[in-house]
């Protein structure tokens, strides 16, 4: 395992110390329990936006804390849900009296920890609403599974719910927007290489030199199929087809196209991917009104990409364009 770390068990804590040292002017980092909050939290009268999940997906979630997006992020151990005590403390730290939205990626662990935290927070007097993100079309949505995984749409839900909260909308309204974003977004990812979880020490999975994993999860979970390596354009076509047919996205739809890097893929390749996404969507009669290209929800150093499409309407466009001031996403400020 080749990593710029000291103790594999201390990675998250030491990274948080680094975040505190680098961004102490805009972020408040609590170590025990661990959370990263806006320095000015709680914002009185504003709905608090809390997200969280395993670490190793940076900049998600800590990089999205700031005006117009998250009020607080709870980092778990790498690829492991954070715990209810963190979520409870974080909820209380950002509860400005208008309630707190929990943004939860649909993984059994995250869901159960957040459920527990929501019960605890309610018992201690915070109003909490929870929104599940489950946009990954690689996984069958059936009552016989844990349901679809939350992946790329998480970034969009965090941005758009954050903007709605910043506008002064109520908890119910903000939650409704978050749910709408999740309902109107679909994603699928792929990996060229595995990643290595620090406290595990060996690659999560093995891929031959001429293989790729289609439908990979953000924790290196196996995907739909393992196939021969292909040119970028063919890979994009493979990812887009199930996304487009699932919602479905139709000719005339306005969309936000989000090309995400898994962490180890250079930006130059992500733009090669975006090029094909733009071509295909234009052939299908879709209009890309907004886009996002970069490493935003990663799987440590995994090489690969995911594509997320979100069906837009005027309100979502306005919320997307609204000012956001975080370390990883910033405009209009």
């Amino acid at each position, binding site marked *: 395992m080749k990593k710029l770390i000291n103790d594999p068990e201390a990675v998250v804590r030491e990274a948080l110390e680094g975040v505190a040292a680098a961004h102490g002017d805009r972020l408040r980092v609590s170590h025990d329990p661990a959370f990263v909050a806006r320095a000015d939290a709680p914002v009185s009268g504003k709905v608090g936006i809390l997200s969280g999940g395993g670490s190793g997906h940076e900049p998600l979630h800590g990089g999205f804390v700031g005006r117009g997006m998250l009020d607080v992020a709870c980092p778990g151990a790498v690829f492991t*849900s954070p715990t209810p005590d963190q979520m409870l403390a974080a909820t209380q730290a950002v509860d400005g009296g208008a309630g707190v939205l929990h943004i939860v990626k649909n993984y059994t662990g995250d869901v159960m920890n957040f459920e527990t935290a929501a019960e605890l927070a309610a018992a201690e007097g915070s109003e909490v609403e929870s929104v599940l993100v489950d946009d990954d079309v690689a996984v069958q949505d059936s009552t016989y599974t844990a349901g679809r995984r939350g992946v790329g749409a998480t970034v969009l839900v965090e941005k758009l719910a954050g903007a709605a909260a910043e506008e002064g909308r109520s908890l119910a309204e903000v939650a409704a927007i978050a749910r709408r974003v999740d309902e109107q977004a679909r994603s699928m990812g792929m990996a060229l290489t595995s990643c290595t979880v620090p406290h595990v020490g060996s690659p999560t999975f093995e891929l031959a030199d001429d293989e790729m994993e289609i439908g990979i999860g953000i924790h*290196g979970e196996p995907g739909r199929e393992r196939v021969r390596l292909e040119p970028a354009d063919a890979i994009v076509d493979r990812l887009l087809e199930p996304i487009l047919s699932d919602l479905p996205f139709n000719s005339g739809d306005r969309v936000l196209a989000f090309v995400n890097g898994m962490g180890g893929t250079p930006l130059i390749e992500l733009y090669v991917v975006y090029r094909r996404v733009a071509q295909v969507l234009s052939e299908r009669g879709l209009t890309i009104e907004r886009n996002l290209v970069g490493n935003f929800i990663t799987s440590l150093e995994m090489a690969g990409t995911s594509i997320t499409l979100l069906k837009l309407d005027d309100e979502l466009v306005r919320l997307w364009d609204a000012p956001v001031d975080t370390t990883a996403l910033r405009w209009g400020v």
Partner: protein
Amino acid sequence: MDVSEWVRRSAGALEQERDRLNRLDADIGDGDHGANMARGFTAVVARLDGAAADSSSAALRTVGMTLLSTVGGAAGPLYGSLFIALAGATRAREPDAAVWADALDAAVAAVQRRGKAEPGDKTMVDALIPARDALRAAVDDGKPLAEALAASADAAEEGARATIPLLARKGRASYLGERSIGHQDPGATSTALLLRALAGSWDETTA
């Protein structure tokens, strides 16, 4: 019962089986179950060492709250619920065999309430239910406590092994569909470890 002893034995067993549990979890999940459990029980041991509990119930509650805040993942809230339910069911008096059978009943119900898993879904529930039933049967038969707990642990191990041919319907493993068949569930395996540790830590003389 001696919760400290149970927890120490559990921590030892989990530390020893850590890599195996990680590997089982790598096959059908994300490869961290051993690490999660070892981290949690190490914290539990430290917490109980720090402050002696007044009662088994209080100690069990500390175990549950500590697991909740240190294990994370799916196993954290599930084992957290389990121990908190055991604490609740033993609040009235120090447990004997009959109380413990009721407590395990309540604990399994708590795990199912949180995780919504049914028997056969290939989860820790598939170790817990046979363990609960075996304990109840042994207690009803008037078996000595040590024997009843051993029977319960045996049933949990059997249940864990019996998850191998199952298709996962809950948790991460469910994403694999058919590919989950042929692997033993890590959570059921850790459950069996805990119940075996209990059987080794509690008999009439210590009860």
